[in-house]
């Protein structure tokens, strides 16, 4: 079984730490954005685009985006190595899992690049 070479940091302890740091960043970002939207009932384009024009907000958003990429990779790796296994899927399991991880890699890279384009492109 080829599992550890497809994990995020190739070490369980390192992945464990990254999962927690990214979780804290994502929780902080969620509270910030959801809190802002809830506390601004008549949100208009002017106010919204001004918020995202601040360098700090863009960097915070980028940090959240990169956190999603790392956090999702570690989480989905844990799920895939639990369920796409030889015991559950037979001999093709490793092949199927690597294909699934390649697809997830493309989707994740698309999220990051698209997000950067949105944040710095308006």
């Amino acid at each position, binding site marked *: 079984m080829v599992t550890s070479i497809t994990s995020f940091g190739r070490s369980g302890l390192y992945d464990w730490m990254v999962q*927690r740091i990214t*979780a*804290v960043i994502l*929780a902080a970002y*969620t509270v910030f954005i*959801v809190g802002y939207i*809830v506390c601004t009932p008549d949100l*208009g*384009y*002017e106010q*919204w*685009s001004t918020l*995202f024009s601040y360098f700090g907000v863009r960097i915070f958003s980028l940090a959240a985006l990169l956190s*999603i990429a790392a956090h*999702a990779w570690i*989480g*989905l790796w844990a*799920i895939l190595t639990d369920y796409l296994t030889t*015991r559950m899927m037979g001999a093709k399991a490793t092949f199927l899992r690597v294909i699934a991880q390649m697809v997830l890699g493309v*989707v994740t890279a698309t*999220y990051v690049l*698209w*997000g950067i384009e*949105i944040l710095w492109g*308006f």
Partner: protein
Amino acid sequence: MNKNRPVNLDISTIKLPITAYISILHRVSGVILYAVAGILLYMLDASLESAASFAELKESINTPLPQIIIWGSLAALAYHMVAGIRHLIMDCGIGETLEGGQNGAKIAFVVAAILIVLAGVWVW
């Protein structure tokens, strides 16, 4: 060890404790959030592109299907965050016993349910 021992990991035949449900739902909500991230990026794109696309988005998300998607996303987010905070608290050594884990799971379910209802109230 004999490698041919019978193994039963057929989840449908095992009575799961509350801690198993909170763990499985943490995974399910995580997968949902990964998929929903694409929709949220689409909405962020439309909201920032121009004043016209912002107005158009604001108009279009006030219909039943987008409202259900937004509420579902917020529900997954609320649940995943609460279950994640429970993990972080347990990492600090709090609630690590069998009883503590079960109580923590109950608290997490209640807090998540309250947040999910509040999200529904906010959307509608």
